[in-house]
């Protein structure tokens, strides 16, 4: 599975507006075998999981580690491994689908809609608080803390410069350039 991306959209996506965030799923459409993000101009094919499940995972990822400066595509990249795991391992697939079903059931009873369609982040977080002790949440959280933050494409958005040895380190590139003290 690959992220299909329109190059004109990619790096220009910096900070997201509050409205977009609070209605996270609204920007992602489910079509056929893929999810399409019209605002960010990318699509993601789902193989083992349904596009609806992938869309839910993207919303879940943002709710776990919400950074307004990160576009949805970074969360999509961070959770796409679950589609691959589900393709290779029936137990992993059942865990993901079961976990999503649990979130949706809680959301249906409290908000009359699926988890990913609950409009306010705070309401979705309240749903997640009921599920955070479970294996599904733990697995998604544990994977995401690596897959989201170990993506070199997100580092510049946090002011982290990554590898430096090939550039000669920082001895001539600002290791002691602080001026505001």
């Amino acid at each position, binding site marked *: 599975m690959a992220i299909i991306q329109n190059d004109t959209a990619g790096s220009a996506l910096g900070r997201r507006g509050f409205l977009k965030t609070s209605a996270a799923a609204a920007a992602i459409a489910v079509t056929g075998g893929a999810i399409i993000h019209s605002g960010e101009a990318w699509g993601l094919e789902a193989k083992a999981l349904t596009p609806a499940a992938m869309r839910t995972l993207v919303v879940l990822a943002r709710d776990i580690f919400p950074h307004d400066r990160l576009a949805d595509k970074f969360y999509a990249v961070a959770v796409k491994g679950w589609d691959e795991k589900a393709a290779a391992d029936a137990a992993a697939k059942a865990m993901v689908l079961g976990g999503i079903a649990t979130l949706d059931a809680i959301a249906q009873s409290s908000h009359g809609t699926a988890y990913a369609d609950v409009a306010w982040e705070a309401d979705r977080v309240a749903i997640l608080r009921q599920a955070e002790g479970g294996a599904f949440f733990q697995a998604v959280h544990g994977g995401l803390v690596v897959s989201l*933050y*170990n993506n070199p494409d997100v580092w510049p958005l946090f*002011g982290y410069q990554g590898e430096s040895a090939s550039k000669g*380190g920082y001895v001539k590139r600002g*290791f002691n350039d602080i001026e505001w003290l």
Partner: protein
Amino acid sequence: MTKFDLNDDSVVVIVGSGAGGGTLGTDLARAGIKTVILEAGSRYEIEDFVNDEWASFGQLAWTDPRSTSGNWRVHKDFGGLPAWIVKAVGGSTVHWAGASLRFQEHEFRARTTYGDIAGANLLDWPVTLDEMAPWYEKAEFRMGTTRTNGIPGLPGNNNFKVLEAGAKKLGYKEVHTGRMSINSEPRDGRGACQQIGFCFQGCKSGAKWSTLIAEIPKGEATGNLEVRPDSQVIKIEHDASGKATAVVYADKDGKLQRQKARVVAVAGNSIESPRLLLNSASSMFPDGLANSSGQVGRNYMRHTTGSVYGVFEKPVHMYRGTTMAGIVQDEARHDPSRGFAGGYELETLSLGLPFMAAFLNPGAWGREFTSALDGYENMAGMWIVGEDMPQETNRITLDPKLKDKYGMAAASVHFDDHANDVAMRNHAYGQGSAIYAAVGAVRTFPTPPYPSTHNLGTNRMSAKARDGVVNKWGQTHDVKNLFVSDGSQFTTGATENPTLTIVALATRQAATIASLMAKNEI
């Protein structure tokens, strides 16, 4: 490269190639003694190291199975990873940050100085600072420690400047860029620090001292030292007289080999060393080799640690430059009026974004957590390292179920914080936060301990055989030709980062072993 025969029973066999084993092996080789170092990990050189936290962790970290228990938070957060140490030639000197501090005089007399602290198994070392001083001098010289031997201090990076400014506002006096075994100018065939950062991932410039680049090659050049990587030691064998005779290990293909030995020195760090002695139990030594005292594996110490990160209004870029070249030493004294025995250092520390996410508050999620990471660029960081109390019940045992891939019992690490440890950590969190608040931090984060990098005390040194595992030379009380050469010898943990003391002890032990061999006493 020199190769010694498996049946050559005239060699000294050292288990482990880190600060203790790598130094000891090099010194023995230079003294003309044939030496084999068995290293569990592979050999990586400077060009193999990567400036990438997770990739480097995968390359260098010891991730063989281990279990944990106890009330320390590492058990909850990283149950299978009690320690962040290295499995590679050079051991954890590949990963260490370079801080090289001598112990204070009173720290060798912890029981006398601190008194009888409930629950603490305090004991005075059988050596004094006076006895160690010449060995510290030799260690500082060979390691090129800054602020010794006329070597200038490293320049301060942004993270240090924040620490220094805050500490001075609080009235702290002993604030500087540390005594670091990282070249501030070219020395010993190695260049000066390029302020790369990534000190923990293996120094790409070679400015940082490690046994991998600064010791072992010199030992090998004598023709008396053979380092065998990918050699996981399984057990130490002995003869009917109770003398160590051979070391059994699994080679790179998993095939068991037996290297005969005249002398054996164990230097596998404070989890593996006692595990090996326990796994070497025999009918003559049913509780494990050199364990007549019952102290093998006990008194496990890991330093009272924690971190404080502060977020400021403007950028710091703490990750640029030498990771730990910055220290506040004013709290290192023993001053019970603070509510605890012993002292602590505050040292600059930074993590890259990937590890900051993993370690800032493991398990956390939501905006409270992510808003902290949103401040990454404006963050400064420091590490707390203080003396923790030895407790008999904090110990390494053999896990009854968990095995390594050779079927040997894995180490189980039990650790409970002592009340003294908790009081010290809380004091340090307060002072660390105050340092950053003094220079305008908008938020500070008292961050829990990481998996242990300083693992100490599990084969403690004692004057009397009943109180510990080794004597003042690191020679086991029970087996004359068996030595312990790593930080597991430490009787107590002291405040300071341990590597300089491990190297000083190994240098001293090499002279002792050479002398005992010359006199045919071992």
